[in-house]
């Protein structure tokens, strides 16, 4: 039963190695046997899913704005623009100035050359703190700081797309994406917001972004494998990808009054923090499945599983325990996009509901076919290290 205060998805902006926009993603992902787009040489021994060719001018008109950002912020601002366009909001001052925004963000790119220079010099100097002052005061580009600040992705979206109702940035890997979607939906359900831009971006083609995983040995090494098949392989199981996902969430009444196309309704969004060191992840995922009120019968699940060994095997066990669930590990084809992973999962779930068709298996050895029309689709993001969440996406 639909209600006027339902949360609906009225805009989707996606970028990944597969291309950009919901149509391109649907076409590729609905194609049985789709092969991953991989870059295995540039960061060897790590494989990443690289960004596609992007014409930034299409969403970031001013060169000056582009210059103020590094790739991560450009990517997020670009994906946000795609979502706003898709929802018919871009360029509408009234809608943009009253639109709330919750962005899930990590940090931006450091200057690798400056860092490498300082590290090299540190081999022959003991006064490393002085070295740091000497180099950073003279070699850092002053405005680079603004390209690194977590909340400046949202700041750039305000500047470029004029979204100014409110602006909040949540940090904390996949969990930030979960909380962003959960909070945005709660605002709409309670009548605090009528329309919210929510999402994130991750640009993995930078050594510091790989280091963020590898300080705990999370990255997969050696030949690429699908996300469910990396247990026991060299490394930690994560293959990362560059990408971004933004959603326009809207109160049903608000979207209907503008005569907008609705992709899907966003049902319950649930989040959790399992005490993983005590082995509680399987149980937490099972409990979340209950809280998400998954319907009876066959259920398609867009899993954001990262490949990280412990988290991915716990998720697989919890999903496999529910016979009706047919999971699709989309990181097999896009890589792991950290803060963007959950919004991406929700977007892919909404597309399946909207197109009235399930995705074919992304990994024939580990996934089973889904026949019929998916009326509800589950989206999950179980953090590679901490925090987890899921949402149920229903037919509009």
């Amino acid at each position: 039963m639909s209600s006027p205060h339902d949360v609906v998805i009225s805009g989707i902006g996606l970028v990944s190695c597969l291309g950009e926009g919901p149509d391109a993603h649907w076409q590729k992902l609905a194609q049985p046997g789709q092969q991953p787009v991989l870059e295995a040489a540039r960061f060897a021994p790590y494989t990443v899913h690289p960004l596609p060719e992007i014409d930034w001018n299409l969403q970031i008109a001013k060169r000056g704005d582009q210059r103020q950002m590094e790739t991560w912020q450009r990517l997020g601002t670009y994906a946000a623009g795609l979502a706003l366009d898709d929802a018919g909001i871009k360029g509408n001052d009234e809608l943009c100035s009253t639109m709330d925004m919750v962005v899930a963000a990590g940090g931006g790119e450091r200057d690798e050359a400056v860092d490498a220079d300082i590290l090299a010099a540190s081999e022959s100097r003991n006064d490393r703190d002085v070295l740091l002052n000497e180099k950073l005061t003279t070699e850092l580009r002053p405005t680079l700081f603004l390209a690194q600040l977590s909340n400046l992705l949202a700041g750039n979206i305000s500047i470029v797309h004029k979204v100014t109702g409110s602006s909040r940035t949540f940090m904390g890997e996949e969990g930030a994406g979960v909380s962003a979607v959960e909070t945005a939906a709660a605002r709409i359900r309670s009548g605090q917001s009528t329309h919210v831009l929510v999402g994130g971006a991750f640009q993995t083609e930078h050594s510091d972004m790989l280091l963020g995983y590898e300080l705990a040995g999370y990255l997969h090494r050696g030949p690429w494998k699908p996300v469910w098949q990396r247990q026991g392989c060299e490394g930690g199981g994560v293959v990362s990808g560059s990408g971004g996902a933004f959603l326009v969430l809207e109160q049903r009444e608000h979207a209907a009054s503008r005569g907008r196309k609705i992709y899907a309704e966003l049902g319950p969004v649930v989040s959790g923090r399992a005490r993983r060191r005590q082995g509680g992840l399987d149980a937490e995922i099972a409990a979340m499945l209950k809280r998400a009120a998954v319907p009876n019968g066959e259920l398609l699940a867009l899993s954001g599983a990262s490949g990280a060994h412990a988290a991915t095997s716990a998720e697989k066990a919890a999903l496999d325990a529910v016979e009706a669930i047919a999971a699709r590990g989309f990181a097999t084809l896009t890589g792991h996009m950290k803060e963007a992973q959950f919004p991406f999962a929700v977007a892919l779930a909404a597309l399946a509901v909207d197109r009235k068709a399930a995705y074919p298996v992304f990994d024939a050895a580990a996934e089973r076919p889904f026949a019929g029309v998916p009326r509800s689709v589950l989206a999950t993001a179980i953090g590679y290290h901490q925090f987890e969440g899921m949402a149920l996406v229903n037919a509009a």
Partner: protein
Amino acid sequence: MANLRDHMGRPIVAVTGIGVVTSLGAGKSDNWAALTSGKSGIHPITRFPVDHLNTRISGMVDFLPSSSKGASPLTYELAETAAQEAVAEAGLNSGDFGGPLFLASPPVELDWHERFSLYNSDKQDSGTERLLRVARRLKELDIFETTQFGSIADRLADRFGTRGLPITLSTACASGATAIQLGVEAIRRGECDRALSIGADGSATAEALIRFSLLSALSTHNDIPEKASKPFSKDRDGFVLAEGAGALVLESLEAALARGATVLGILRGCGEKADDFHRTRSKPDGSPAIAAVRAALADAGLSKDEIDYVNAHGTSTPENDKMEHLSLSTVFGERIGSMPVSSNKSMIGHTLSAAGAVEAAFSLMTMREGVIPPTINYDNPDPAIMLDVVPNKKRNAEVGTVLSNSFGFGGQNTCLVMAREPV
């Protein structure tokens, strides 16, 4: 029987616990004594060498065990210290808080000392290739966790037994206020009876200082550190980088009264508005800050004549103070000349991600104590922005309502309205 719902029918949100740490000390009593006697916590930097630096002063917190251990450990300890004080004052079980956690904290990065030590533990290759190879051989998670944006909140959630997935947020220099706003909103939506909102920032590293310095944001008045932060003065030349933490236990008034808790104040309203003008500068007409103040008043159900005192953002940068004056005078009209408006930052510097929470804590104490902390170093008033800044000496005053402003890079504007008593 107190009214338990506000003018919009939402649960009224009470404050039942307050905690604070700044360069003036740990805890409310030390801070309040210093703040009301006009004492500055700004001092020369000793944590790292200051060779080549234009700014050599700060409001760092140098007295905690983690003060020399890097941004992540110090931010955690600041948050924990403030939260412990708040939760204890609220009379709640400090290991089983039973409500969500909202943490405003700085973005994290691998500390340079770790970078150096990882790099120099090996000789093969160079640059990040070497770092990555060393990284994957690490056996402990300690360094890794300092680079995860959710880890400080995860540890705090364990420490205090908060419920659910903790939210870590950044709205730059408005972060602390946003953490409080998120707590208020969760209670108003009926998601919980209580929330723990913390703003903490222990990120005053050399690199942070240099980054702000390269943007010409910092004061370079190094010679007399305690005189460097001079909000609303003609010769103000930038903010003073500082550290600290503020924590509030927020509770629905109904739940607070039901368990017999002491109500320390009311979080009446929150307002925000993003600015689309520039990454570091505000729209020249001040309209986003004006809109944020007005949104906070409307949310609180108060008219502009019902605010007794403004706890200013007052950073001591030429740009902020001018813009804040413009927005306040636009909202409050002629009355602004006779309204007390003071800046805690004149004494504690700018605690960045913590500022909104630290200053909310001080705003609540201002009402409870009936004493307005001064704006110190107000020796050369800026004639273009004449305000009653409560110059140099504290003032005894009945304060029933406070507006606290927080503005940040990236067009962030968040304002809180607090009251001494429920309606």
